[in-house]
């Protein structure tokens, strides 16, 4: 068992989809937000919307880490690289993300050193390799990535590496979901919760969504059967709760070792999300005792004046109140090779998903209302 093919079994997918259709035969219309960008991508890639009944609507949420990182963060990273001789080490997705005036990719063209790494530990290895230069890792991501960065900072401290620091932009998911749950414009009935964030934090941090906001939730894996089963669980709940579909990975209590690593190195702080503004306690900052590894404290990066492209609708897309084809830039000025907004850059971005899998369904000038009804997806089965 490799835990992939079995969860893509076409026969079973069709049967489970039929079970969802039977179960959802209610006068009630369901609006379910898939929070995670990988869910969005796979819902398109496997054509899952086609299998759902007309009264279940899926909306995409803010779970793509690169997409919710605001321009100010990218601006700071570029400023830091330009003002110092630092090597910027980052996951590949961040390189093309446009800031207010430039991107790391463009900055690289003008002489700044930007290296793509696969893990934060690789950035620490770079720091050891170039002891005369500072290596700044771009700490972007949710609770899944934060413990890996925490472990690396602890390793740097233990190893006495002084030329390594992190520009910390980590965010935490439950606080953002609270804002969405309170948004009168969004009106969702439930959340498909992100599997890998939940592997770290467990199910308890989401329980307020059910108790206080009466939302139905399911922690879902990423294969077609996972997503369909989680939708089934949401529709079948007799009262709002957090169902656990992805039990082969996620434990109810989460990964306590990873939670401890986050607590040791980071503390909670307010954080700005693209499109959602500043959300209290939704970010992580490096504790004072590790300030030698906090790029912001170490280099006192001056203020940046972020500027947003006012035509870009990434903010509304991330909140689930608009879909990409409703944006005037989508598919025309904003394309994967020349992105205007972050949601077109990331491999987990909602705009990138719409562009890749359903662009042809959206003739230019299509009205917003019709755009929601004509989504046709490409089905691709890997077997």
């Amino acid at each position, binding site marked *: *068992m*490799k*835990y992939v093919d*079995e*969860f893509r079994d076409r026969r*079973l997918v069709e*049967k*489970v989809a*039929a*079970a969802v259709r039977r179960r959802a035969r209610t006068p009630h219309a369901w609006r379910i937000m898939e929070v995670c960008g990988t869910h969005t991508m796979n819902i398109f890639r496997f054509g899952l919307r086609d299998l759902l009944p007309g009264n279940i609507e899926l909306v995409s949420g803010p779970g793509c880490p690169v997409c919710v990182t605001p321009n100010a963060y990218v601006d700071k990273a570029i400023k830091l690289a330009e003002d110092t001789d630092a090597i910027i080490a980052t*996951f590949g997705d961040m390189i093309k993300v446009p800031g207010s005036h430039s991107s790391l990719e463009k900055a690289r063209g003008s002489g700044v050193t930007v290296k793509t790494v*696969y*893990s*934060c*530990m*690789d950035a620490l290895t770079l720091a050891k390799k170039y002891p005369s230069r500072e290596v700044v890792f771009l700490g972007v*991501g949710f609770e*899944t*990535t934060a*413990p*890996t960065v925490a*472990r690396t900072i602890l390793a740097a401290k233990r190893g006495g590496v002084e030329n390594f620091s992190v520009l910390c932009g980590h965010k935490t998911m439950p606080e953002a979901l609270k804002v969405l749950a309170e948004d009168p414009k969004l009106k969702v009935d439930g959340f498909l919760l992100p599997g*890998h964030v939940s*592997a*770290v934090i467990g199910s308890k941090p989401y329980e307020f969504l059910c108790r206080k906001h009466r939302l139905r939730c399911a922690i879902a894996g990423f294969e077609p*059967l996972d997503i369909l*089963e989680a939708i*089934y669980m949401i529709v079948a709940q007799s009262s709002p709760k957090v169902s656990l*579909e992805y*039990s*082969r*990975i*996620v*434990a109810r209590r989460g*990964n306590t*070792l*990873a939670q401890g*690593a986050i607590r040791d190195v980071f503390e909670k702080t307010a954080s700005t999300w693209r499109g959602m503004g500043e959300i209290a306690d939704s970010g992580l900052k490096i504790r004072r005792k590790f300030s030698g590894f906090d790029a912001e404290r170490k280099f006192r990066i001056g203020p940046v004046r972020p500027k947003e492209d006012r035509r870009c609708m990434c903010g509304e897309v991330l909140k689930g109140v608009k879909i990409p084809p409703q944006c005037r830039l989508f598919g025309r000025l904003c394309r994967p090779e020349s992105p205007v907004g972050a949601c077109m850059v990331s491999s987990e971005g909602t705009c990138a998903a719409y562009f890749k899998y359903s662009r042809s369904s959206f003739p230019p000038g299509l009205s917003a209302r019709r755009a929601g009804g004509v989504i046709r997806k490409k089905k691709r089965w890997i077997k």
Partner: protein
Amino acid sequence: MKIAEISGDEALVTAGGLRRKANLSLLKNAKVGEYVLIHAGFAIERVKSSEAKRTLKALEELA
């Protein structure tokens, strides 16, 4: 991915023909032969085969 070798906190993990280094410091008592979920170079959780089988069985019954 499957843990093929362990040396300290570092492991060699494999999937199909793919071989990668992974850090095991976020898992308690990881063993060779176990399947793990890798994120950004770290194993962040084990894959529990008994739960995977249980889920698939429940899906068959659902259908």
